[in-house]
């Protein structure tokens, strides 16, 4: 496993987050090393999505600190630019830009935010479309594609920004069952490339296959963090055991 000794690429320290009176995250701490693959699971409403959204500042936290490759996340412009260029995100609902062709979805960020030329951005986009195995869809509009294809385009769009960290927020939850595997295959391939990945998912087969560590959340807290094998064979907490029993037994 590619653990290295250098400082963690993501550091979450005593983070709390409220939505009104509701405490979405309660004193959460977690460190993730460069190249590590972490899967976060837990019942809905447990705060897993909120946690990874705090890592690229789509949500702000009220208490505690989040560092991404050494930079603390604040509302300062420099901090935001840094984190957004280091961290890519794949959403449950894909969030492709429906009015732009697939190729233009992919080149927009590199051209406008990274300053690549039209040709360089196109070349890069085609490279990543090959990687997610749908180069032939480049000239189509997102709504002409299947859900699985759309999510693969979304993954390619994130990759085009060449982030150091890729966050996945339930990437297969909005997909029809027969399309889940084509997306997971792409993610497995990515995991093999050394990308730092933080994945919120209920796909335990995938988790077992690629995760270095598992995180179990419930009620806004991190209840258990363990190496993948230990997590599945001998979960320590009662809540985690109950959750795993529920989702593995059918």
């Amino acid at each position, binding site marked *: 496993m590619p653990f290295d000794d250098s400082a963690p690429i993501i550091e979450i320290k005593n983070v709390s987050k409220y939505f009104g009176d509701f405490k979405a995250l309660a004193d959460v701490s977690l460190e993730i090393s460069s190249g590590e693959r972490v899967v976060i699971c837990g019942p809905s409403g447990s705060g897993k999505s909120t946690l990874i959204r705090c890592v*690229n500042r*789509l949500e702000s936290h009220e208490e505690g600190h989040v560092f991404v490759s050494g930079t603390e996340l604040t509302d300062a412009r420099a901090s935001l*630019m840094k984190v*957004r*260029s280091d*961290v*890519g*995100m794949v*959403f449950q*609902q894909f*969030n*492709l*830009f*429906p*009015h*732009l062709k697939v190729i233009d979805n992919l080149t*927009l*960020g590199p051209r*406008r*935010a*990274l300053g690549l030329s039209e040709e360089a951005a196109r070349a890069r986009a085609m490279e990543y479309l090959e990687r997610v195995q749908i180069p032939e869809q480049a000239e*189509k*509009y997102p*709504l*002409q594609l299947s859900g699985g294809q759309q999510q693969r385009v*979304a993954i390619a*769009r*994130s990759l*085009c*920004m060449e982030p150091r960290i890729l966050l996945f927020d339930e990437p297969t939850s909005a997909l029809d069952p027969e399309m889940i595997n084509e997306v997971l295959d792409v993610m497995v391939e990515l995991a093999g490339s050394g990308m730092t990945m933080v994945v919120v998912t209920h796909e335990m087969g995938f988790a077992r296959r690629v995760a270095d560590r598992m995180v179990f959340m419930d009620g806004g807290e991190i209840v258990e963090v363990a190496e993948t094998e230990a997590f599945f064979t001998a979960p320590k907490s009662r809540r985690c055991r109950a959750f795993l029993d529920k989702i593995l037994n059918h």
Partner: protein
Amino acid sequence: MKRAILLLSVFLFVAGCSGNWGWYVVDPRTPTGWINLTFMMRGAYYTLAISVVAISISVVVGLIIALPGLSKNKYLRGINRTYVEVVRSVPILVLILWVFYGLPELTGIRLNVFWAGVFALALSDSAFQAEIFRAGIQSIRRGQYEAAQSISLNYVDTMRFVILPQAIRRILPALGNQLVYMIKMSSLVSVIGLQDLTRNARELVVTEYRTLEIYTILVLEYLVIILIVSAGVRWLERRLQESERG
């Protein structure tokens, strides 16, 4: 629509034959009728020019006014609310009179009839455009902003490449509506002397005394212009939709 126009023409033809009508004033087969008719139609130039110039300005101003209305900052939202509420509560005719007769006394700058009209129409319409844009932008799902942020786009690029192109597609019917409304409201500028369709019709009435025929032609002139504009807007709508869903 086609049937309605056909029925209307048949009615006018029959009524015109009854002897109570005097279509000769605008009969293109007689020299005077031809001169009168072309005189009336020449007004279309100013009607279209003032409407197009005014709507171009009001769309831009409306967008600029809409943006602070979407802010989290309540003072910025306050600016938006104040502008919209004040501007849209002034009747257009009153605004035209105020800009043309009142404003020069206040500022010493006298706008000519055309630009006074443009100013009043654009100002009045911008409040409505601001509301249309605000609604359109608010209808875009949050995920679109988040996706734009996640690929490092700044606010201006997010608006320019992601949010506005989608919002404008959605508000196109409303924008078309405003254009039609603008063309109709431009007739009010005739009161300060703009030589538009309405003004020319009224001048012709003064010399020919055939109110019914001349104003009927005036109605038809607006009808034709607006039918063409509506068809154009619908064509644009269809084209933009096709490009998304193919």
